């Protein structure tokens, strides 16, 4: 099992429950992957962000008898197949070989590198952050503040579709999770700080989960939130006043307007994790049309699980991982 994020953990747990011994390798020093840094986005009630589920699954996998977890370990080579593979693992200076009956890749995704969107100023302007930065801020500090002066922002803008649905950078897909997570972050922030106003700048609002309509109605009814169908083209920064100015069309004033925001959050989409391409070459895997890992036919004994096969939220990643675990079982001809 290559990858110790939520998908890798789910596949390993399911296989272990079925009695199939699994070795899970993770490049970092801890399990959980990207979703382990997410904060709880509840307001008065749970907003179904699934971040807490990740924490629980990470502690649960350590209980499984048939899973051996190797952190700070990478896969450097593979031989054989489809009935048996010999994988070469590297941990610091240690090298080991492992014989396995199947390999599952769940290497996950990286958030889109927002510095590539130079017009938004990420990396240059301190108060332009990504949603991942915001998640970590809320999880580990519990407070919302502007990176430049540590003060509470009076108004926050969320830019959607950063890195997704964008032909100019070749990402012709919807990352599926950004509308939902940005709206949840807005609800969570407004609940903790009712005086903070939020502006949500989008193209099309994508639903997620089963009760999204109700959730969207609550967002629409919140007077401190503006949902505006207009993506801004550029962020201007005036260093003297340390203000960020953004130009977009404001339906209230019925024209293009320029507004200043204390904090700008870029809702970054998903891209394939760094280092995945070399793994794909080792296993002779192709890319999908959208640039994610394409699942090979199951007779090869190589399987792909989670968001590395295409954008997914935590809910669907867990589902996909369970589905992949079943395919692994079928391949191994596991029976009751």
């Amino acid at each position: 099992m290559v990858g110790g994020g939520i998908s890798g953990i789910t596949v390993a747990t399911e296989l272990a429950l079925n009695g199939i011994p699994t070795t899970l390798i993770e490049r970092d020093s801890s399990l959980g992957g990207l979703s382990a840094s997410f904060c709880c986005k509840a307001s008065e009630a749970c907003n179904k962000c699934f971040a807490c589920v990740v924490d629980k699954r990470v502690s649960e996998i350590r209980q499984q008898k048939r899973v051996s977890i190797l952190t700070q370990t990478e896969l450097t080579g593979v031989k054989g197949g489809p009935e048996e593979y010999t994988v070469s693992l590297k941990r610091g200076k240690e090298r080991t070989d492992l014989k396995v009956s199947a390999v599952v890749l769940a290497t996950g995704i990286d958030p889109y590198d927002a510095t590539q969107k130079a017009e938004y100023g990420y990396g240059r302007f301190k108060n332009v952050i990504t949603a991942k930065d915001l998640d970590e801020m809320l999880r580990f500090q519990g407070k919302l503040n502007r990176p430049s002066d540590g003060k509470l922002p009076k108004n926050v803008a969320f830019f959607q579709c950063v890195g997704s649905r964008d032909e100019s950078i070749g990402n012709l897909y919807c990352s599926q999770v950004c509308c939902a997570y940005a709206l949840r972050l807005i609800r969570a922030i407004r609940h903790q700080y009712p005086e903070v106003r939020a502006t949500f700048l989008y193209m099309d609002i994508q639903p997620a989960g089963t009760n999204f309509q109700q959730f969207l109605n609550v967002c629409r009814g919140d007077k401190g939130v503006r949902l505006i169908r207009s993506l801004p083209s550029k962020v201007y920064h005036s260093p003297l006043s340390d203000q960020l100015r953004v130009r977009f069309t404001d339906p209230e004033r019925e024209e293009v307007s320029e507004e200043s925001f204390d904090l700008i959050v870029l809702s970054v989409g998903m891209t394939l994790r760094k280092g995945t391409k070399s793994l794909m070459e080792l296993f002779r895997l192709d890319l999908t049309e959208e640039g994610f890992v394409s699942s090979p036919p199951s007779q090869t004994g190589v399987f792909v699980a989670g968001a590395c096969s295409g954008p997914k939220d935590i809910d669907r990643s867990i589902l996909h991982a369970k589905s992949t675990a079943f395919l692994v079982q079928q391949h191994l001809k596991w029976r009751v």
Partner: protein
Amino acid sequence: MARIGIFIDALQGSISTSFRERIASYVEGLPQVVFCRVEENLTSSEGLSRMGKRLEEGGVDRVLIIGGSPRLYETSFQKWGHPLPFNPYLLAVANIREQVLWTTADEEKAFEKAKGIITKALRTASASQPIETQSLPLKPEVLVLGGGITGISIAQALAKSGVHVFLLEKGSQLGGRVLELQTFYNRPEKVRQWVEEKVSEVSRTSNITLLTQAELKYLEGHLGRFQAKIRSRDGREDALQVSALVVATGYETQRERKGIYSHKRVITLSEMEKLLSQAKAPSFQYEGKGVGMVTYLLDGVNEDIKVDSINAIKQSLQLQESFQCQVAILCKDVKVSTDGMERLYRRAREKGVLFFKYEEAPKLSIVNGQIQVDVKDTAPIQKKDQWPVSILSDLLITSEDFIPAPETENLSRILKIHLGSRGFLMEDNPQLLRVRSNRRGIFVTGGCRFPQEVSESLTEARAVAEEVMALLSKGDYTYDLAVAEVDPKKCAVCYTCPRLCPHSAITVEQYAEKNIYTIPGRENKWGAAKVDPAACYGCGICVAECPAKAITLRHVTDEQIYAQMNLME
């Protein structure tokens, strides 16, 4: 009097040597303590086996670990096996790392706090009682309700893994709602052929017992011993004994018929699917006349269901490419958050499909036998450019309302599983991880949970098969009796607990004992509430609600809770 052995876990240096020594000298002097040993890391298998060896030497009947969070040790015990030569519940943990050392800077204050926590833990350890383990055999037999694409896929998947599946379908044919589609948006196959292949595979699979024109009437029992009564249309009744159930009964659609929606030129997406499959290129005919302008009106009812968008865009491409129609799609938001949809959307636009995004509901009227749709397009930048657009359409295609299937409410009563806020099965709770229900051994999947696209249902079907296999593959279900237990002598049969239990694990049964509520002359007719130990999750809600305090949770008793409060002496 309990004889307690204490292990201080150094947790690889998290607890400093000096602190450890102070703690050790404090506890060694306490009554009931037989010995105190320091270990390097009790969360490792070596540490645990050393602990086990020391305990095997005897002399103690309770154990206290002074170290980190009890959750760490519970995890290690699960993984490496309990090191205790006696019952694993005769153990207490004093968390002095997370609760004391890591949160208190001053060492004196930390020591005082640690002493308090250790005293509490000693009390818990000496009061702890052993709890046994039981196991329940699980036969590989599963009942799947619903012969739609989800039910069929689950039945096939499980049958291939050696499980015997009873597939129940209320209609006379298998296939369900997917047969309303003619083509898939992301697969080259034709739906009908694809479904027919799957259905014939089902009939060829010996492990699948197909019961058509039959419905579930009654379900009793719990995990491993469900007893289902099936009634067929011809009145025949069958009884089935299964270990687990899968519910895949699907959803219904409801069509708006008021006013203009009853006009013959206003049709639904599924009606359009059928028309498209029967039409011969290059001309699309409707009621004998050629069709030029087709308008789709989406998001009128449900804003959060993606299935309509997918089918509309798929159909619109076919209309523009093969039939030279002009298509306009009116929606609130273009829903592309499904694999491959963004590309399909762009292709549709390239081929000339017009998209209008509205906020106010468009106005519909009939003009000369055509449908006129007046919509205010919110896409233009300046509001002054947002003229109302009038589209004279030969056909107007609307989306239908997605509603739960009519038998869903009854089914939730029979199966004792919850309904969500929109009437579909199961509330939206992330902890249930999608395919689980509130009852152990019953799984809910597919459209009856929420209408979704076929690929998603197929993934869910495999996920359910995985969950069922995880349950059945060991051949039995092993559990601790750390569950709620009703004392039949105190039960007044008030029916509070069966109604409260979120997992429907409590039923009222006939017992052969007497209690104080027995009516003289009716001694052999009374019953008491019984908690099924395999179905109980150990939450304790029933324990807290029982007015007669007849229910106990063996590892979380009142005494243990009061001991943790550290207020009563």
